[in-house]
């Protein structure tokens, strides 16, 4: 294993820390709005205050939390919620493969800390700032600058949402904002035909198989969608085929 680069002493006045903060500042309002929505959704689904706070601080993964809430509310078994969390989080597995050359030289305790804080947008900004996949001293303050602001602009509105959710009338449908956030996230993942087909198959399968016990419709939907998308990827193109039947 390579030795970690000598980071030297740095604090929040380090120029790379400030740069990490200012890069993240542009998207902080969006993160804050989503954090607020997630906080409100956690309370409105009926999570007691301490548990909602624990989920926000310990899990720290907005889409996974929003995805888990309807399942928790409908009494899905723990393993189905955890499997759904793993699926929604699979993108982090892909991102972590790209984080590795930057973070691998550091001790395990530091890698664990960094793993907890490394959210999607931190990845996006970090990779733009340091395109070459190798560890450099300037990366450490930059990483903590961006992740600090990201964490605060998520957690503070989330806690505010948890504390004040009950003073918002339920007819306003603020809880549905969580579904809308997930909808927007789903739209942002539709890059090509295969991902669009995967989303359509998963959505329809989840509705059609809704009557299955234990929220297994989610599992069935994911399996069906991944299978169809992989078939689309690997199937040879057959120009003689009639137009798609979308029934």
């Amino acid at each position, binding site marked *: 294993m390579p030795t970690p680069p000598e980071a030297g002493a740095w604090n929040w006045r380090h120029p790379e820390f400030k740069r990490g903060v200012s890069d993240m500042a542009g998207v902080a309002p969006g993160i804050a709005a989503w954090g607020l929505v997630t906080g409100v959704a956690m309370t409105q689904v009926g999570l007691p205050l301490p548990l909602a706070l624990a989920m926000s601080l310990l899990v720290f993964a907005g889409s996974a939390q929003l995805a888990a809430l309807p399942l928790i509310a409908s009494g899905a078994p723990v393993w189905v919620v955890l499997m759904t969390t793993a699926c929604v989080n699979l993108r982090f597995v892909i991102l972590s493969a790209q984080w590795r050359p930057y973070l691998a030289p550091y001790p395990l305790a530091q890698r664990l800390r960094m793993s907890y804080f490394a959210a999607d947008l931190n990845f996006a900004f970090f990779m733009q700032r340091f395109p070459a996949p190798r560890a450099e001293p300037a990366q450490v303050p930059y990483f903590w600058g961006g992740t600090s602001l990201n964490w605060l602009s998520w957690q503070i509105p989330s806690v505010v949402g948890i504390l004040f959710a009950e003073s918002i009338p339920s007819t306003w449908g603020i809880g549905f904002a969580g579904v809308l956030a997930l909808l927007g996230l789903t739209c942002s993942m539709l890059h090509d035909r295969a991902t669009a087909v995967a989303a359509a198959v*998963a959505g329809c399968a989840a509705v059609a198989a809704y009557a299955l016990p234990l929220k297994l419709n989610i599992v069935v939907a994911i399996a069906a969608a991944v299978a169809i998308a992989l078939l689309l990827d690997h199937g040879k193109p057959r120009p003689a085929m009639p137009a798609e039947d979308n029934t």
Partner: protein
Amino acid sequence: MSTLDIVLTILGMALVTLITRGFFVLPSRELPLPDWLSQGLRYAPVAALAAIVLPEIVMTQGQLIGHWQDARVFAALAGAAWYAWRRSILGTIVSGSLVLLALRLGLGW
């Protein structure tokens, strides 16, 4: 869910999230990533989200909604249209919520 189940769920979700975020960062040795796995990984996240979102929009208490006067459907359509137009998740939340609010408070749906 009982309180114990929820506690277990939250602890499990925290662990799963930490493991997925650090999947290739935490092991001390390089892990090989087979091609079929990385391809399957591409589709699972969007599938999981769509599987959760669609029933939340078009179903009520386990039944497909039988009428079109449901504010959620129009809110979701407005949100999706906004995303197609502006590519903004925040805009999706705001436009969808406004449509939902207008239909609920204005038309009483």
